[in-house]
């Protein structure tokens, strides 16, 4: 679906996105994870043909991005990090107008509105929408022409947990339909939950690229930490896969003296810190 080879791009004279190579196959959710200013949105703009002065090669749907024609956009749906709606028009009028620009037949607008939970607000002006409603509306706008590739820029950022959940479910539903999805985020939970693979991006470079699971595994085993009382509180920890060798833990269990026990998996955030020496925020 996407092949990127030795891609470099900069807005200025200084190098920014430099020498990136990766590919994304059909049906995959691929995440760009990185702190703000890392170049995630910029990379997406190259892939949707908005920035054409790049070096190297970026092929989306078999088309080199800088040579895109209007047909290129029949199969790309984009959800920017900001709302892109006519504020004075209603949701329905907006969707109707945008869908009319495509040669492809539109997905039923009523159905999409219902999916986003906006069926009762379809005739309200977009300017009267809340932030969460706007986010959902902008997302279904990207689905109107049933594109093969969805590019979502920070689809969950700034949303409350409920809206964020709805958004993630809609994304997963599109994946189930076989769509390829590119998303950027600086939220590692979302990346871990949604993405088949993630690329860590810092300062215009890819530092790591793998499935969230493998990245987490690469950090090493999960550890178990437990506490008990012996005059005062003590605590110890042990790797999960060596638990049976921990005589002290066995004794504490046998004597029923454990005060607490919990396991801690490394998170993508830890991995990100390890690999890049930076946090995600």
């Amino acid at each position: 679906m996407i092949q990127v080879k030795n891609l470099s791009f900069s807005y200025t004279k200084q190098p920014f996105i430099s020498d990136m190579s990766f590919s994304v196959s059909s049906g995959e959710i691929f995440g760009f994870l990185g702190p703000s200013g890392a170049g995630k949105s910029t990379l997406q703009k190259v892939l949707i043909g908005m920035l054409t002065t790049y070096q190297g090669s970026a092929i989306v749907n078999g088309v080199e991005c800088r040579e895109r024609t209007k047909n290129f956009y029949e199969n790309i749906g984009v959800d920017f990090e900001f709302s892109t709606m006519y504020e004075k028009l209603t949701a329905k009028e907006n969707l109707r107008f945008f869908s009319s620009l495509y040669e492809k037949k539109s997905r039923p607008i009523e159905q999409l509105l219902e999916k986003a939970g906006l069926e009762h607000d379809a005739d309200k002006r977009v300017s009267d929408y809340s932030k969460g409603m706007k986010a959902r509306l902008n997302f279904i706008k990207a689905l109107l022409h049933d594109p093969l590739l969805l590019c979502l820029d920070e689809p969950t950022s700034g949303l409350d947990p409920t809206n964020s959940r709805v958004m993630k479910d809609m994304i997963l539903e599109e994946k189930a339909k076989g769509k390829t999805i590119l998303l950027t985020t600086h939220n590692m939970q979302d990346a871990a939950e949604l993405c088949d693979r993630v690329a860590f991006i810092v300062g215009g470079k890819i530092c790591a690229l793998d499935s969230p699971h493998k990245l987490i595994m690469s950090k090493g085993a999960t550890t178990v930490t437990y506490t008990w009382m012996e005059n005062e509180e003590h605590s110890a920890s042990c790797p999960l896969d060596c638990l049976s060798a921990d005589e002290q833990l066995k004794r504490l269990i046998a004597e029923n003296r454990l005060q607490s026990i919990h396991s801690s998996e490394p998170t993508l955030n830890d991995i990100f810190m390890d690999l890049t020496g930076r946090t995600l925020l």
Partner: protein
Amino acid sequence: MKAIRLSFWGMVTYLRRDMMLFAACLAPILVGFLFRFVIPLFEDALTDWFHVPTVISPYYGLIDILFAMLSPAMFGFVSVMVTLEENDEKTAKYLFITPLTKHGYLIARFGIPSVFALLVTVVLLPVFKLSPFPFSYIVLLAAGGTLQGIVIVLLILTLSSNKLEGMAVTKLSTLIMFGAAIPFFVKDNVQYVLSPLPSFWIGKAVFENSLFYMLPTFPLLFVWIWALLKQFLRKI
């Protein structure tokens, strides 16, 4: 093609919600009536009053020039306001990544309105003109007015970054129309100070009643358009 057509109609339906822009589209007809029927009445009244042969009539040619520039400027103003709003709301950015594309967007917002302005001017100018122009003048005035409309549009777009600034800059940008008045009022060679304005030469040609003076107009217009377009394309 479909996307260009529909996004142009999208703009037209949008205008119906905005009284100011809607009125701007009708202005050429209202102003045409005013110029054609009210000004001659004034002229009669004034010449009677002052007992002189002419008051306004030496400037009828200038009034016709301004009328030829009116539709392109008005339609351009309307398109600019719509685009600046689309820029504020980021809808323009979205349209660029639909099958409309940036190129189609520019055609829908500026190409089609310019063609309309040209047609409207070629039709209305013979109806409302005050001077006995031959058809060649009509066509050249309409073409010059249309290209100048594009200059005004580009000036506003390059000088402003939102709708509010756009309104302010519009007044400034339309001043370039009034280069046409200079040959009528400044007899001295000082008038040539404003010769880089394309409208100056349109005014000169009508004042001297010789199309020969129109020659510099079109190259000048293209230079203005080229320079401004370069700026503008860098910006979007």
